[in-house]
Each structure stands twice: as C-alpha cells, then as structure tokens.
C-alpha cells in the first residue's frame, strides 16, 4: 500500500487488476447486493424487448472494480474524488482489466495531490470505462511512536 508521496511518481502504474469474466450469476449477485433491480441486467427477456442482445453488466459493478484497483493501491481514506465515464457496455463473458497511471503530483497545502488516470478494457483490449481519481498523501510517513528498548 502507498502511504506517502515519496512512494509515488508521475508515470507510475497501479498494479493491474484483472476480474473474472462476467456471468449471469455475477449480475444476479450484484443486482441484490447493490439495490439496483433494473431488469436490463438480470432478465434476458427484458433486455431483448429493449433492443439489446442480452443482459449486460451494471455500470456501478464496473466502477466498483475500478474502485478495487484504487483501494488495493492506497487506503480508501486517502481518496478525494473518483469519477468514470461508461464508454461501452460490458457483456457476458467479458473480463475487465483495470489499470491506472499517476498523471499528476502537486503539493497542495500540507498534502500531495496525486491524480490518477483510470481505464478498464475487456480481455481483447477494447476500452469500456475511462476515469480519474484524486488521492491526497502526506509528504512522508509519520514515524510511529514505538518505544525503543534501551539498556
């Protein structure tokens, strides 16, 4: 986990997060867990009636995956903002590959403002989501007040 600005430089890449392929079960779980009961994501009949080939992933499921990319890199309390554009729907069998790159590092008061560019593609590299996050980090890790043993 990143804890201070000394560990971060513009151009750094976050460790890539590859999620499992989307299944109908994934979407059924997320429907219940997320309170988003829109039938487009769980009912193939409703999806076809609306002109889609089949059900597709909830945007907020895809965004949750990008959130995991971030919180796997830095503690969530450091996160100041997080936004995404849902560029293309994510279909059954597609697998999201979530990546992030540090594009900005600026001193802002007593904290460093770290800007991260986010991207999620499918396993074929086709772009699905793009976004940005801002993280605030202290300049250096504050020394823990651990007592030293002196004899």
């Amino acid at each position, binding site marked *: 986990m990143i804890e201070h600005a000394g560990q971060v430089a513009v151009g750094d890449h976050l460790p890539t997060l590859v999620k499992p392929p989307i299944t109908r079960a994934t979407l059924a779980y997320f429907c219940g867990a*997320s309170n988003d009961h829109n*039938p*487009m994501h769980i009912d193939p009949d409703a999806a076809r009636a609306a002109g889609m080939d089949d059900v597709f992933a909830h*945007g907020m499921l895809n965004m*949750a*995956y990008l959130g995991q990319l971030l919180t796997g890199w830095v503690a*969530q309390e450091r996160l100041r903002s997080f936004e995404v554009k849902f560029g293309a729907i994510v279909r059954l069998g597609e697998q999201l590959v979530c990546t992030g790159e540090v594009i900005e590092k600026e001193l802002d008061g007593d904290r460093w403002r770290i800007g991260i560019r986010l991207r999620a593609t499918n396993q074929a590299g086709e772009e699905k989501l793009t976004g940005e996050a801002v993280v605030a980090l202290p300049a250096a890790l504050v020394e823990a007040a651990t007592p030293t043993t002196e004899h």
Partner: protein
Amino acid sequence: MTSTFVDIPIPPLVVEVEKWQLRFFAKAVGETNPIYFDETAARAAGHPSILAPPTYAVTLSLCEADPYARYRSLGIDWCRMLHAHQGFEYFTPIHAGDRLRFQSRIVDFIQRRQGRLKFLIEETEAWNQDDVLTTRFRKTIVIRDPEAQP
C-alpha cells in the same frame, strides 16, 4: 438541444448502513480486502466497523421501495436508461452502523434530437448521523427513446 430544469421534489432518504449488506456487496464484487466484510479486520485497521467501499453510497441511495419512481414521473422507461457518467467527492468515510441522510436533486435534464436522446444529471449528498457530509455524487443517465414524438 433543449435544457429543461426539472424541479421535482425528492424527499430525503434515511438509511442505516447494515453489516450484512456490506458483506453481500463484498461477495458480489469479489472483494478480497477483509476491512470491507470482516468487522474484526476493519477494527484492527483503525475503523469503527466494516468500511463501505468507494461506490457504495449509490447502493445506499437506492435503498427505497421504488428508486426509479422519480424517473418514471419524467416519462423515462428504466429499460431505456444507460449510465453514462458517475463521479464522487469524498469527505468522511462511511461505516456499518452509520445512519445516513440522502438528499438528491435533479441538476439538469437535456433533450436532443427532438427528445430521442435525453440526458439526466442528478446530484446527491449523503450526510451522516453527526450531520457531517460523507460524500457528494453525481450521475449522468442517457435515455435513448427512438420512438419519441417531437
């Protein structure tokens, strides 16, 4: 392009943040960090209880009998809605046991191509039991309605 400010009243929504639902969400997204589903691990990491992940406020904001009713009142069919953009600003973390008050408003409702394409922008603030703003989020929904009558 027509922008119609829509001032439909959206009553505040009060929601308790439940541990079981956070665990269910963690399972649904394949979360592996235990601070998002195990209270002991969350406390060991300095949290009062299980931590709500970064997008979870949207889930809480949908915790009502019919969260789509306000869109239906604008003539929007939920099967024609696509989520186009979502953004969060963060101020204070949300944990299990919090009691949140959601206040939403429709910021803009834009119609293009004689109503065949509509964009709805909604902003929500989530205030906790200490009256502290936890997060503010904004969603943009695009509605495709090829049969719209001009």
